[in-house]
């Protein structure tokens, strides 16, 4: 399985603030990777560096190219959607399609128009007169009609109504993803995408806290609803996080074989959201 993104020792600082602290980022082809982290963690900086919109130090190879050297060539293979609403406000819908058609060799206009026909977006309206949700629909329709090997989405559903958000991920998964294309999504709304993802990357304060695929996660991490009489035993196994849940205590363990945990109570794989909190809290506790 080749990696479509191979980035090592990425470093970026703004004045005294370190946005990326020598991180490695490798994403296998065909993965749907979630880059998850709190605001200010470095998600946007990391993503922008992969598509050449942000100058960072380190080695980067995306789809066989260094994004800092020939961004425009890279854009024939990679597509990017930033936070909602970056389509130019003065353009008409028909003009966007016309422009992308002339400019992008892999754009299939009829495909985009087919996607658009399922929305309520009129082709002669200006983008400034479309709702936020429609702008995202339009941008997604365009992107889905472009044949690229990597799609990078930076908080694509930020500020959208739940209907548009759900539709966005529906389309992404059903109409776009075919097993060969790679998708890299960043978000801080974990719950929304956890069922989509094949790979997880947690980032906090410019450092990578976790980078694994979902199968590995199930092997490594476990959450146990510990019976009250087994608390001492549970503590001895050094959990990375403990929280109260409906009157019982929920322990999260890392790299502890399930066999040991079975006797303590209900064992299950933590949800991405719970794992995220556990790792973040765990990191912060350690540094105290």
């Amino acid at each position: 399985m080749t990696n479509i993104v191979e980035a090592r020792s990425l470093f970026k600082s703004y004045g005294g603030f370190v946005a990326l602290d020598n991180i490695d980022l490798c994403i296998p082809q065909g993965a749907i990777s979630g880059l998850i982290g709190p605001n200010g963690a470095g998600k946007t900086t990391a993503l922008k560096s992969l598509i050449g919109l942000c100058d960072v130090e380190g080695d980067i190879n995306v789809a066989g190219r260094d994004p800092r050297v020939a961004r425009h060539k890279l854009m024939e293979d990679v597509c990017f959607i930033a936070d909602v609403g970056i389509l130019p406000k003065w353009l008409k819908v028909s003009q966007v399609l016309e422009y992308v058609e002339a400019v992008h060799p892999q754009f299939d206009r009829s495909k985009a128009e087919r996607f658009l026909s399922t929305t309520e977006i009129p082709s002669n309206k200006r983008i400034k007169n479309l709702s936020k949700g429609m702008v995202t629909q339009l941008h997604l329709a365009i992107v889905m009609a472009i044949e690229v090997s990597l799609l990078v989405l930076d908080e694509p559903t930020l500020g959208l109504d739940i209907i548009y958000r759900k539709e966005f991920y529906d389309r992404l998964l059903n109409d776009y993803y075919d097993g060969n294309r790679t998708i890299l999504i960043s978000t801080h709304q974990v719950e929304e995408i956890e069922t989509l993802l094949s790979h997880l990357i947690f980032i906090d304060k410019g450092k990578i806290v976790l980078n694994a695929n979902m199968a590995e996660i199930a092997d490594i991490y476990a959450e146990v609803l510990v019976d009250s009489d087994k608390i001492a035993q549970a503590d001895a196994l050094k959990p990375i996080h403990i929280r109260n849940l409906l009157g019982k205590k929920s322990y999260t363990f890392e790299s502890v074989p399930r066999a040991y945990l079975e006797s303590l109570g209900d064992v299950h794989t933590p949800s991405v959201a719970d794992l995220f909190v556990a790792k973040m809290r765990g990191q912060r506790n350690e540094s105290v």
Partner: protein
Amino acid sequence: MNQFRVLQFFALLRKEFWENRNLMIGAPAVLAIVLFVVNFLVASQLSDEQLSTVLGYVGEWFDVQNPFYTAPVLTLLSLPFVVVYFFCSVIYLLNALYHDRKDMSILFWQSMPISNLQTVISKIVTIVIVSPLFTVAAMAVLYSLSIFYLTVVGYGLGSQLSGFSYMLAAMAVNLSLIYFFLATSVLWLLPLAGWLLLFSGFARRAPMLWAIGVYFLLGFFEEFIFNTRFLSNWAQTRFDPDNFIIVDFSGIFDRLLSYDMFIGWVVGALLITGSVYMRRHAE
């Protein structure tokens, strides 16, 4: 240069046109309407006799039949268009690399396979070749309407209108001259274009203030610290109208394909290169 790159480039020019219709078409169109109304009002202040005399005189002038001789008179009418064109171009260039950074639409443009060099070049080609077309078109409409109106009035007054038919030929010559003049003036002022683009790409706010402020600061420093005048000598040559104002077609190539024109391209290219890098590296 394969066909695809050519199509891409035309798409860029189309995009510039879509984005700047107000500057490119609106400004000269409004000016044309204003001038037409002003002429109309002036003409309506004259008595029939005065008007008849003026029209007779005008007809006589154009009866000379050589449009290359008569065209320069129309240059007077062209001056407002030239001035408007200059101001619109300055505004255009200051906004060219600034506006899309301000509203973040740059993230969309840069997600397309278009290089920053292509982008900057398309903006220069727009003001050299594309934009003057619309100014000249507005002038053509103004001239045609004026000639039509004056002809109608003149017939009504029984003036001597023999030369009027030659007005159209003079008009055509004048329009070609003005188009050529606008295009070559921009090329002559390429260093200015580069300077404006550089600050358009650099400034987070108020690119015009940066562009003007830095220039004066530089000149000030040069004069008071080094006691030399290289910058102001250069500016004086560059902005001396005598160096690039074109009245008729004679001697054009000598004046324009000159050392000063070429060195201007070198300096312009330096600043334009700076603006291309600025677009790539400005956060």
